[in-house]
């Protein structure tokens, strides 16, 4: 079996900092509860405590040093760190959103050139949230917006429009979670069609539907096919196992939509299953990889070209990106 082609530039469009600080216990416990159901139904002697312990082991990289090492091993040149703001919906968050932004700023400064950060804010935080988001673009060096609708709002909620106006002004993309998530949150606002009004009202803003090859697969494809400013990422493809992991990605990349699809791993969510190198290999292995039947040009679009194009627009934006100031990580 061939090794991943390390000459090909790879940018991971969907990662998070692997630290418990960014995940409320209620969020983790909900996800672990689902796992526990599967295990106990099979007669496996698992407990919630032991499962949480294993989950926590995957969240011990607050400065992203391990991630950078895994990126090097996998041939990933750069990763996008997405900030999900659970602080309005879940009351057991360990950090305020401003503290969370500062932690990401520190990682950006610690690993120059290795990361981009998309700040996330629940729109119900009002003017304070909007002001912080704008500072993240003009002062912190962040270059995108992340929203998490299962926290209880539609991606077309008018409260988000001022954020989208800022995104249009600064020419930055928006990544939104779509599909079910931890049972601590709402699934009824996770349908990608809920984005349609916002995508229509803000044609100058590019929206990326996360997990487009995993949840609401048909809906995501339709949105990408018919809305010029809607894209999707492949993150979460590791949800499926064995051949289905490869066929899931293959199905996504054989629809004539490769100018709209972004590679992503959702680090650290699948760390129990493998390393970044394993996951890159699933896609880029020359013989059996999910992208093996595509032309080099199509592979490049998915692995870095599409994201670069979305971020390139920022280069001409009115407020240029400034280097993140050095902050102490931890």
């Amino acid at each position: 079996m061939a090794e991943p082609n390390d000459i090909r530039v790879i940018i991971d469009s969907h990662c998070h900092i692997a630290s418990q600080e960014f995940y409320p216990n209620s969020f983790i416990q909900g996800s672990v509860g689902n796992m526990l159901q599967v295990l106990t139904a099979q007669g496996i002697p698992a407990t919630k405590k032991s499962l949480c312990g294993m989950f926590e082991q995957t969240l011990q990289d607050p400065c992203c040093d391990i991630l950078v090492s895994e990126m090097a091993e996998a041939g990933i040149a750069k990763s996008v760190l997405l900030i999900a703001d659970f602080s309005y919906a879940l009351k057991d968050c360990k950090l305020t959103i401003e503290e969370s932004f500062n932690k990401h700023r520190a990682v950006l400064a610690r690993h120059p050139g290795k990361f981009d950060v998309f700040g996330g804010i629940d729109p119900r935080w009002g003017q304070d949230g909007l002001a912080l988001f704008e500072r993240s673009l003009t002062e912190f060096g962040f270059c995108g917006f992340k929203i998490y609708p299962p926290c209880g709002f539609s991606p077309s909620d008018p409260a988000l429009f001022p954020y989208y106006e800022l995104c249009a002004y600064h020419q930055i993309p928006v990544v939104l979670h779509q599909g079910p998530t931890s049972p601590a949150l709402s699934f009824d606002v996770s349908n990608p069609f809920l984005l349609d009004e916002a995508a229509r009202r803000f044609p100058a803003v590019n929206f990326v539907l996360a997990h487009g090859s995993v949840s609401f697969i048909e809906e995501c494809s339709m949105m990408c096919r018919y809305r010029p400013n809607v894209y999707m990422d492949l993150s979460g493809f590791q949800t499926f196992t064995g051949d289905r992991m490869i066929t899931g990605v293959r199905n996504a990349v054989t629809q004539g939509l490769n100018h709209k699809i972004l590679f992503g791993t959702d680090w650290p969510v699948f760390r129990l299953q493998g390393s970044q190198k394993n996951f890159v290999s699933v896609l880029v292995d020359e013989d059996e990889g999910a992208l093996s039947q595509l032309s080099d040009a199509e592979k490049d679009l998915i692995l870095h070209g599409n994201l670069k194009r979305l971020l390139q627009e920022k280069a001409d934006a009115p407020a240029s990106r400034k280097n993140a100031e050095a902050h102490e990580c931890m």
Partner: protein
Amino acid sequence: MDIDTTIDEKIMGLIAESVPSKFKKNTITPATHLRRELGMDSIGILSFVFRFEKAFGIDLSKTNFHVDMSEIRTAGDAVNLARKVIEQSQPANGA
């Protein structure tokens, strides 16, 4: 058959038990890739870990051994890691 061989076989047996039914017929060798060839997702890996704890009477959370799940890629990796845990746990378990 020596003790080491018995332990290895027991661990390979635990891996076989943790494989999803669709992949049960696949032959397992030390080089077999757990995720790609045996369809083991995070639930499958966790099943193996919990079965291992029960079979050997080891509570990983009470040991000082740090198990990095991402290092378990092949059946051989799982066997090697399990053996290390068993070796490190022996003094604590007593003779």
